[in-house]
Structures are given as C-alpha cells and as structure tokens.
C-alpha cells in the first residue's frame, strides 16, 4: 500500500538532489576554492600556490592564510583603477543601452502583433548567434583600414584615418552592441503588459502625451529598466572578450587584468583575490537582479 509513497519520496529526492549536488560540486565548491586560494602564497610550482591547509601528522589542518594578496591589491593602485574603470565602462554602456533600448522596446511593444513577433525575433536572433563573431565583426569596421575610415576618407571628411579600434569608444560600441538584446527583452516584457487603456485614462484625465509617459508608462516599466540595466551591467563589468579584441593595450578592465594575472604572470593567488573582490562587488547587483527579474517576469 505504501510502496507508491516510498517511490514518490525516492523520485523527489532524485529530482532535487541530482542537480543540487552537481551545482554544489561544480559551481559552489569552485568558488570556495577561489576564495581559499586568494589567501595563499604564490610559489613557483605546479600548482603555483601554497596549500591553505597543511595536513599535519595529527590529522589537523593548520591554517596558512595570508592577506598579502589583498594587501597588494590595495597598495598597487593599478587594481583600484581597473575596478573603477570597469565600473565606469559598464555604467556608461548600460546607460547607452537604456537610451537606445527603451524606445526600441516601446516601439516593439506597440507594434501590430505579427510585426511585433518579427521585431522581437530580430532582437533575440543575435543573442543566439556567436558573441565572439559579432564582436569580431566590429574589428573590420573600426580598424584604421576599416570601413568607417575608408568611407570617411573617400568622402573627404577626414585626411588621416581615425584610431577607433583599440580605444574605449570601440569598447563602448562593442558592449552596447553585444548586450542590447538583454536590455530590450525585459523592457519589452514590462511594456507589453502595459494596458493601453491606462494611457487613455491618463490622457482622458487631462495629461499631455509626455506627461502620460512620465506619469504612467515610465513608472510601470521601472522593474524592466532595472532588470535590463543589471543584465547589462553585471556581465559588462567582468567582460573579457570585448576589451581584449576591441580595447587598447591600456584598457584596464578588471576581467582582462584577471586573465593576464593568471596567464601572463601566473600569479594564481592574486588572480583569485581579484576574482573574489569582483564577486563581492557583484553580490549586491546580483541580488537586486533576482528580485527585479521576479517582479518583471
């Protein structure tokens, strides 16, 4: 009689535990290791760091922690500048995404249903195609011998080719280009649900079109704006590919610093410390995101 209950319990345990254990093992545990290694000393060995626990004969782990990595990060303002620069670049790119994405999302939400579907599909499409290749496409456009410079030279607007590739401008362009769909989709989701009758009610009550927008449309779409901004800001902050391909050698984005610290300098504990701080910076936006995504969904 109770066999089905036992089977149900087993199934339930399986459904929950298999993915749970997987994520604990391959997602959470690695973070703890990063955190741990950020307190270790670098040594020239394989792996190039001292173990945080030394197993003594008594079986007790002796904690060998050092704050040297964090001290170094604070003392060398290269890192502080990198963090600030990353936040700055991510923030400006996010702002640009809102400015371009909001009117687009609004237009899509107000389009006829069949047109709307195609417009929406065209926003989603780039998201499915290769990120790397889309960033790469800009290299050919922006380079000194690229299409923009060729066109401007041919038109006689400029005499000398402009240096656009390998500058911050190129990084901004690349980020906005890559993450624009992340801004448009949550915005669209909130704007699409906006009841047109509410706007009519507002204008019926005497509001002019711009007032209707600021009094009704904008506040209602706020969860979408916030979710979209976080969806752009968070990955942009740790972005590696875009500054690596489009940015200059001096573009001090933290994702690139981390990568270089790890591969060029082989200072794993320092790279771990860089990652840990980046993660701490991201905790608040990530928690905000999960709250607003629920609100926007």
């Amino acid at each position, binding site marked *: 009689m109770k066999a089905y209950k036992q089977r149900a319990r087993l199934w339930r345990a399986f459904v929950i535990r298999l993915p749970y254990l997987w994520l604990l093992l391959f997602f959470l545990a690695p973070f703890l290791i990063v955190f741990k290694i950020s307190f270790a000393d670098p040594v020239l060995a394989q792996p190039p760091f001292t173990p945080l626990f030394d197993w003594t004969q008594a079986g007790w782990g002796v904690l060998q922690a050092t704050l040297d990595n964090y001290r170094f990060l604070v003392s060398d303002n290269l890192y502080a500048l990198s963090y600030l620069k990353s936040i700055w670049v991510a923030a400006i790119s996010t702002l640009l995404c809102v400015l371009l994405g909001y009117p687009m999302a609004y237009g899509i939400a107000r389009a006829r249903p069949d047109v709307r579907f195609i417009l929406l599909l065209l*926003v989603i499409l780039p998201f*499915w195609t290769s990120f790397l290749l889309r960033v790469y496409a800009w290299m050919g456009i922006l380079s000194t011998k690229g299409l923009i410079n060729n066109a401007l030279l041919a038109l006689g607007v400029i005499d000398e080719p402009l240096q656009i590739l390998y500058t911050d401008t190129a990084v901004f362009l690349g980020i906005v280009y890559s993450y624009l769909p992340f801004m448009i989709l949550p915005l669209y989701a909130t704007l699409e649900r906006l009841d047109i009758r509410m706007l009519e009610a507002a204008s019926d009550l005497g509001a002019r079109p711009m007032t209707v927008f600021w009094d009704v449309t904008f506040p209602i779409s706020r969860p979408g704006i916030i979710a979209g901004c976080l969806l752009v800001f968070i990955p942009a902050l740790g972005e590696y*590919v875009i500054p690596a391909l489009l940015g200059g050698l001096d573009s001090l984005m933290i994702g690139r610093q981390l990568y270089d610290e790890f591969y060029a300098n082989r200072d794993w504990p320092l790279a771990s410390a860089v990652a840990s701080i980046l993660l701490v910076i991201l905790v608040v936006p990530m928690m905000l995101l999960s709250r607003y995504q629920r609100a926007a969904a």
Partner: protein
Amino acid sequence: MRPKRHFIVMSLAFGYAFLYVPIFLLILYSFNDSRIPTIWNGFSLRWYASLLDNQQVIDAALLSLRIALVSATAATVLGTLSGLALAHMDKFRGRLVFTALIAAPLVMPEVITGLSLLLFFISSEAMIGWPAQRGALTITIAHITFSSAFVAVVVQSRLAALDRSLIEAAMDLGGRPFAVARDITLPLIAPAMLAGWLLAFTLSLDDLVIATFVSGPGASTLPMLIFSKVRLGVAPDVNALASLVIVIVGLGVLVAGFVMRRRQVGESHPTSATDPPHVVA
C-alpha cells in the same frame, strides 16, 4: 503624438541597423577576393574553399560540436530536473541555496566561472587524481554546469505557466505518479525542453572564456581557435568561417522561432479556463 512616433520609428530603424549592419558587412566581405579583408577586390569563394583544407579548423569545429551535443543533452536532463524541483516541489531543505545556485550562473562573469572551475579541477586532481588531464571532458562539465541553469529557467517558466490541476486530474483518473509524468508533464514541457536544449547547444558552441580556462593542451574548440587567429587583427578566412556559423545558426533560430510561433498560435485558444498562453523563451 506625432513627433514621438517619429522618434520611436527612427530609434527602431537605427537600432536594427546597428544590430545587423555589422553582420551583413562581415558576410559580404567573406566573399572578398582580397587578402586585405577591408578592401573589396572582387567576388570570390576562395576563403570558403580554404576552410575545407584547414584541418585545424575542421578538428576544432568537430570538437566543439561534440562538446555541444553532449553538454546540451546532459544540461537538458539536469536543467529539467532543476526546473521540476523549483516549480513543483514547494518545500525542501536548502531550497534558497538551490535557487541561488540556479540564478547565479546566468549572470556570473565568465572569467570568474572559468577561473574557479579551473582551480577546482586542479585542486581535485591534486587531491584525488581526477581529472587526470584537462580537455574535452572538463570543458563539457563546465558547459553542462552553466547551461543547465539556463535550461532550468526555461523549463521552470513553462511549468509555472501550466495549470497544476492537469496533473491532479490525471492522478484523479487513476494515473500513478510515474504514468502522470510520462503522459502529461513530459509532453507538455517537451517544447520547453527542446528550447532549452537548443539554448544549451548554442551557449556551448559559443563559449570562449570558460573553455579557455578549463581546457588543457591539445583541446582547442572553435571559438578558441578563432580567438587566437583574430587577436592580432582581421583574417579573411575567419570572415568566411564566421559567416558560415552565423548563417547556419541564424537560419536555425528563425525556423525554430516560426515553428514555435505557429504552435503557440494554435494553442493560444484557451486550452482550459485558467491556462495562460505560454511563452517559450
């Protein structure tokens, strides 16, 4: 209202041009005969032909496809289970942590995920000797981990939109839990699972940063190969390769989009009084 409408139409035109002109230019210049990629020198298929001779590219593409197939399938299994757990199992110990573990990979910067997984694999190798070497296996594990989170979200939103009394009705009619899962739940979430699989597949094909971190000597995926080629500038054969990839994936997504649209239109008549029309991501 007039100027505002104008502004919106202009924004849409500019936005879509911004999104698509670079891609079209890339495809156009992949047919350029010139060795200097940005100077048009006449139509040619030579860069496409050269791809076929490039064993390195073919190997990398095959490796990427293999990893994508395996990781997308495993991620769909894991992600579907996660979606079920989140949507249908209201209370269990550690649910909050589980929810966070599903949400985090979606937004985690790739450098952090990549670095942490690499250090994890190295530590694990030092401690228990596994994995003996890094390569296709470690990349696959990494891809399963983050794409299963994406699948979970897609499946969960489908499950959340399902009328739960469908499942109760099946039980009420004598369906035992396993039969109900097979007869009702599975067919109803199958489209979401398919969408999740496709998402996981493209995410895996596309990933550069995490693969670079967790890969070992000798295992080079297609994005890794492309990245190493273009780091120093534009390369004409990469144009051809990029065009191929973009056109194939793009067509696939367009077809899938229209097929799902038609299914959705067919089902959007209320199937039951409280079942809202579902949205597939």
